[in-house]
């Protein structure tokens, strides 16, 4: 049995419908901004229960544009966590600001109890990451941010549909950033991202900023980027957004099945703490494993595509050298980089495939 990590080949049971939509679009020649994108933005905003959504070129751009319209720039500091994909940091650095890290807690999200120690007079914003599809402790983070008058930009790139006590991710910060990359829970067929906000002023500013700062065809009032979600990708997004609840539920149910079975292997596998009230959407199903690298090889030999997100913590990447961090600075993230393993949990997996994966993990430790 083969258990693949990617499922894109399964997305096209009804490929003709997508091609039909694309054909219609090609006829119009309307390839930037326009109707289909506006429709997608409206529907995306609804999913997040937010008034405004703006489609941009990628999740990374969503973060960079958010920080820039909030005025973050050189000589500012932005706090985030090393438990993330490097793009979070790339976005911060692209604004000219300096990234400052705070360690993560057991569920791979920023540890609010360590947040205040990292705040300086230069701190301008906090970027909590809803990493893996978990939800950072937003009420606590917001309290601290308000106390120090800091902006909050949620990195929700992996967490569309996640919520805390019924409140969806993206509804706490000044803005929140989502990725539509092909491997995300809600994806398009290329790079894409979305920013949501409840501020009409920020929404307006972001719309300008993603489109060269042009207030009309000929007049630029700021130096802006070209960062638009392709209309063609919005057409795809409009179809896939209809499957999005199904996708989320499937992933959650797959994760529960793993949690249940793997909890019986607690001397070898440590399941991260599942906080009450959190609707975790499992973009990545990650556990901590004894003899991780051996397990990875074991699974791979049995055609199970497990992965490691990520073997090098962000603060120890070569790109981070100038920041002066060293091994030992963030023990939780560092320990995670040695022990985490990601098991396939996507919506197209059959029960047998999950059971097979569980069985192979079990046999690795018990035989």
């Amino acid at each position, binding site marked *: 049995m083969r258990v693949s990590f990617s499922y894109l080949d399964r997305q096209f049971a009804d490929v003709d419908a997508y091609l039909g939509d694309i054909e219609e679009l090609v006829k119009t020649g309307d390839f930037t901004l326009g109707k289909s994108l506006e429709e997608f933005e409206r529907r995306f905003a609804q999913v997040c229960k937010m008034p405004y959504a703006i489609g941009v070129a990628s999740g990374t751009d969503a973060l960079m544009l958010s920080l820039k319209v909030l005025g973050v720039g050189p000589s500012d500091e932005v706090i985030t966590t090393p438990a993330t994909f490097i793009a979070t940091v790339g976005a911060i650095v692209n604004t000219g600001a300096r990234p400052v890290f705070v360690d993560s807690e057991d569920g791979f999200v920023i540890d609010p109890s360590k947040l205040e120690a990292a705040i300086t007079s230069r701190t301008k914003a906090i970027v909590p990451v809803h990493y893996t599809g978990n939800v950072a402790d937003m009420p606590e983070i917001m309290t601290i941010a308000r106390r120090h008058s800091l902006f909050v930009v949620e990195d929700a790139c992996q967490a569309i549909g996640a919520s805390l006590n019924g409140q969806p991710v993206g509804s706490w910060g000044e803005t929140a950033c989502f990725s539509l990359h092909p491997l995300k829970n809600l994806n398009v067929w*290329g790079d894409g991202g979305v920013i949501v906000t409840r501020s009409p002023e920020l929404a307006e500013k972001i719309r300008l900023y993603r489109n060269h700062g042009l207030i009309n065809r000929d007049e630029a009032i700021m130096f802006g980027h070209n960062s638009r979600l392709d209309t063609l990708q919005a057409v795809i997004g409009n179809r896939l957004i209809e499957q999005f609840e199904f996708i989320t539920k499937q992933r959650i149910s797959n994760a529960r099945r793993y949690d249940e079975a793997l909890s019986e292997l607690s001397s070898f596998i440590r399941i991260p703490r599942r906080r009450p009230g959190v609707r975790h959407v499992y973009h990545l199903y990650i556990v901590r494993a004894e003899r991780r690298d051996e397990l990875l090889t074991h699974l791979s030999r049995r055609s199970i595509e497990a992965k490691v997100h990520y073997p090098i913590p962000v603060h120890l990447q070569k790109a981070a050298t100038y920041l002066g961090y060293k091994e030992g600075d963030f023990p939780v993230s560092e320990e995670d980089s040695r022990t985490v393993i990601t098991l396939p949990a996507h919506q197209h997996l059959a029960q047998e495939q999950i059971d097979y994966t569980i069985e192979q993990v079990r046999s690795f430790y018990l035989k």
Partner: protein
Amino acid sequence: MSVKIPYVNIGGQHAAIKSELLEAVGRVIDSGQFVLGEEVSEFERRFAQICGVRFAAAVNSGTDALILALRALGIGSCDEVITVPNSFVASTTCIALVGAKPVFVDVREDCNMDPAKLEDAITSRTKAILVVHLTGRPADMDPIIEVAKARKLHVVEDCAQAVLAEYKGKRVGSFGVIGCFSLHPLKTLNACGDGGVLTTNDGALYERLKVLRNVGLRSRDECVVWSSHSRLDSVQAAILLVKMSHVNVWTEKRCANAAFYQRSLADVRGLQVPTDQPFEKAVYHTFVVQADRRDELKEYLTSQGVETAIHYPVPIHLQEVAVGLGYGPGSFPVTERQARRILSLPVYPELTQTDLDYIADAVREFCRR
């Protein structure tokens, strides 16, 4: 029956190649490879070939191409970059966005950088000259490169409007250290969405550009420099590969349309048509005439069903965004004069001879009055 000739007609281009396009998109779907991969590599290989350079790196937009070019050259705060004020705003934006200061020099009658004005604009902080091949006409590269060499400055080419344009037998994008192209839907080689591509002969720069466009990753797990995502979608690469087999024909048709206008509007009073130097091949992304009574001419053509455009009515140094740069009205007289006189006539390959005759007649009719 009233005539209606739009300024652009992308639908017309696509009607003829629809089945090829959908097949290409289908191929990407079958592969499930939506980010980088074969289609993008093949596009880059062929694009490098048509530009006569060793390497091409495809990115998310022409603007991103410019930003990444400057970043790859290490240009940042405290640096100055020289460019022209009569372009689309992105050729200045990219300079500001990397933290450097844009410095303008005026243009010549051909709407391109005036090399004679370069020296005066160079300071100890100048790092690069960003040349724009506006309208699809190559800038006068020999004297520009001479100055750049003497003053040890990088030359970056903004070729957004100039795929296949030539200067003294060489394609644009092969003169500077990096060439930056846009693949925007309205360009002569166009994706069905945003896209851009960089060209270079420098292997080390090429490697840096590939890392920069992919969040600074050298491998799946190793990040060597902080950066963003800026990749040409594989779907768009597949679409562009289809169009690359047509782009020569399309470009020749544009040039033929331009030649027709040049012949039939040559001696019209109050109107100036662009002319080609023997050593250059302009590809006419836009066909820009200069008219004494531009606004009236535009209005007249509109009333006759002919849509036209102005590229661009507000020079960049007079934009609100440029207030901090210290320029004002009178700083660049040629650019400012042209901004009041220029008008872009439809020139796309799908125009019929009837369309062209109609447009030329209408222009002549107006100028006779």
